[in-house]
C-alpha cells in the first residue's frame, strides 16, 4: 500500500480505538456490582458500530401476534 493509504489506515484504526474506549466507558457506567454486565475490548471492539451492525446484525424483524394464555384444560393439541 502507498504511504497515503497506510496513513489513512493508521488514522482509521486510531479513531476506531478512541471510539471503542469511549463507548466502553459509557457502557460500564452502570456496572455498580459484579452482576451487571461489563464491557471491554473483545474481538469486535475494533469495528465501528456501523460496521459491526452491517456484518453481524442482519436479522430482519418480524411482527408476531401476542401470546394469549389458554386456561388449563382448554388447550388444543
Amino acid at each position, binding site marked *: 500500500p502507498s504511504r497515503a493509504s497506510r496513513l489513512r489506515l493508521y488514522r482509521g484504526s486510531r479513531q476506531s480505538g478512541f471510539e*471503542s474506549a469511549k*463507548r*466502553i466507558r459509557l*457502557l460500564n457506567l*452502570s*456496572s455498580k456490582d*459484579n*452482576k*451487571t*454486565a*461489563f*464491557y*471491554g*475490548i*473483545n*474481538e*469486535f*471492539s475494533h*469495528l465501528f*458500530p456501523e460496521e*459491526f*451492525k452491517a*456484518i*453481524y*446484525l*442482519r*436479522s*430482519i*424483524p*418480524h*411482527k*408476531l*401476534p*401476542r*401470546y394469549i*394464555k389458554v386456561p388449563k384444560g382448554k388447550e388444543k393439541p
Partner: protein
Amino acid sequence: LPKKFDWRDKKVIAEVRNQQTCGGCWAFSVVGGIESAYAIKGNNLEELSVQQVIDCSYNNYGCSGGSTVSALSWLNQTKVKLVRDSEYTFKAQTGLCHYFGHSDFGVSITGFAAYDFSGQEEEMMRMLVNWGPLAVTVDAVSWQDYLGGIIQYHCSSGRANHAVLITGFDRTGSIPYWIVQNSWGSTWGIDGYVRVKIGGNVCGIADTVSSVFV
C-alpha cells in the same frame, strides 16, 4: 417452574458456533432449536446444516440477512430435511442450494410456534421448559463489547437486529436472567453465551419468540 433450568444440563444443546462474517444469525438460531428439539425427542444430538438453510431458504437473503420466522415457515411448508453439518458444511457465504435424495439422513420439522411474549416472560419460561430452547430476536448493538455479567441496561426493545437461542434461565440470584447462546464463537461473552435480565423485555428478548417441533 424451577428456580433454575438449562437445557444444556440435559445434553441437548450443540456446541457454540461461529457465523464469522456471514449475517446468518437467523439460520444459526433456528437450526440450533431444531437440533435440540430432535435430541429432546430421544434422538442423538446431531449438528445439522446451517449452510443448507442459508442457501435454500428462498424467502430469506442468506448471509445478507433473514428472519427466524420466515425460515421456520419455509421449513414447515417444504418439510425439507436438514442434513448433517458434516455433509453440507458452513462456508460463511451464500451458495447454491444442494439437494439430497430421500434416503439420506435428515431432520424435518412438524410445526412451530411463534409469538410475542412481551410482558409475559413468566409464561415464556414455561414455554422454554415445556417446548424446548427458544429462538428469539434481540437488539444486540450493545453486545459488541460484551465481556460478561447480566445485561440489564443499554439494551432497548423494538429494534431487533440479531437472532439467538435461549437455552435456559436462572432465578436463584438477586437478578434473574435468561441463558442465551450466541453464534459468535466460544471466545465471545461467557464461553459464547450471554446473560440477559428476565423482566422488562431487555433487548426486546420477548418480542419474537419461536419454538420448533420435530
